[in-house]
């Protein structure tokens, strides 16, 4: 992480937005190409930019106003557009609640998951508050789809590959699942793997294949999800397609998935 201090967030944003002059840009390309962390950061920023632009494309074109007054109003139009983007994202997020397979999506595209459980999404923005304020003892009954009946939805994030840590992480995941089962609570646990964390579910290197298979068999509410960005990077670096353990799904971006799930009321922890 220490290396990416070379570039500020603003600089990276400017790079992604193509606002740098030639010389700066050359330097940035060189440095970013050599630094994995920076490279990943830039990928995330690009994805965010693409998502924003994608959302903009769906908006009706604003009335053209090139006067000075129009320019002054541009700020507020930005605000309205941003709110629409937010609402769009929330609604989209609400409708996506199933594990998805995006392995076949071509590189560079943003995978949009199939909408499996379209629930009544009456209002967009205040929904984020709902899961947070639900009392721990009550099961939400509105919108009686399978997913919303599940009381405990947990994202477990693994981005490291130290064997001792993975060992502990798998222990944590198992004890969490066992806790919910023993206390007869409905739960879904999704393990998101990115960066070095991918090592846990690589068919060729994982030291925990048998244990993962056992967990998958024992708990059908457990999903392992690998980050496609990481898989593509590994593919590019190592020249071989990364094979994953059986049952491991691929998601477009680990970081984006974590953000999406949290905005849907999932809780998050990193082990």
């Amino acid at each position, binding site marked *: 992480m220490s290396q990416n201090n070379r570039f500020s967030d*603003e600089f990276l*944003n400017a790079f*992604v*937005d193509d606002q740098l002059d030639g010389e700066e840009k050359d330097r940035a390309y060189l440095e970013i190409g050599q630094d994995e962390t920076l490279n990943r950061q830039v990928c995330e920023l690009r994805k*965010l*930019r693409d998502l*924003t632009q994608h959302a903009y494309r769906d908006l009706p074109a604003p009335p053209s106003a090139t006067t000075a007054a129009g320019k002054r109003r541009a*700020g507020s139009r*930005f*605000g309205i*557009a*941003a*709110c629409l*983007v*937010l609402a769009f994202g929330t609604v989209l997020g609400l409708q996506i609640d199933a594990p998805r397979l995006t392995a076949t999506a071509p590189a560079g595209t943003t995978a949009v998951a199939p909408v499996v459980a379209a629930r009544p999404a009456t209002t967009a*923005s*205040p929904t*984020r*508050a709902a*899961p*947070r*304020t*639900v009392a*721990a003892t009550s099961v939400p009954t509105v919108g009686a789809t399978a997913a919303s009946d599940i009381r*405990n939805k*947990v994202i*477990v994030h693994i981005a490291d590959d130290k064997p001792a840590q993975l060992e*502990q992480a798998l*222990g*944590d*995941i198992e*004890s*969490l699942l066992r*806790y*919910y089962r023993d*206390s007869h609570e409905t739960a879904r646990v999704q393990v998101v793997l990115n960066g070095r964390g991918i090592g846990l579910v690589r068919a060729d290197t994982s030291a925990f294949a048998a244990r993962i298979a056992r967990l998958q068999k024992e708990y059908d509410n457990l999903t392992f999800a690998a980050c496609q960005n990481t898989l593509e990077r590994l593919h590019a670096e190592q020249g071989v397609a990364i094979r994953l353990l059986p049952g491991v799904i691929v998601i477009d971006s680990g970081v984006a998935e974590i953000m999406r799930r949290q905005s849907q009321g999932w*809780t*998050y*922890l*990193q*082990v």
Partner: protein
Amino acid sequence: MRKVLAVMALALLAIGSGCASMSTGGKQKVVYHINYNDEAQLKAALGNVQNHIAAVGKDNVDVKVVMHGNGVDLLKTANTDLDMQQKVVNLKNEGVDFEVCNNTLVKKKINYKNDLFDVSEKDIVPSGVAEIARLQQQGYVYIKP
């Protein structure tokens, strides 16, 4: 792009602060997650908590430190390391709760009365990980220092 992000962040913040004031009367609720036992890292983590409280004032924040796995070593160390012990005492005086995972106690055969610093029955939770999820459902913000 940056402008849009800034506006979006503001919108999120507005929604977020709306929720916070609705559910907690303006008091921040935070859960700190500790599952490692590197001493320097543990002390830095407690330093983070201390700084957090100093920044917002102890009456404006409700902090819970949840330890499981190797993280329970924090309170084991506090039995012998006076610096660690002092940090824990100071934080407890400021209202911080230290919660210990029972699964870990059983698995590592730890007797909390003898092996851990200042732990009583009420500090034990059945599963540290489930506790972190539960607290987030109640509006606690997750921080892994």
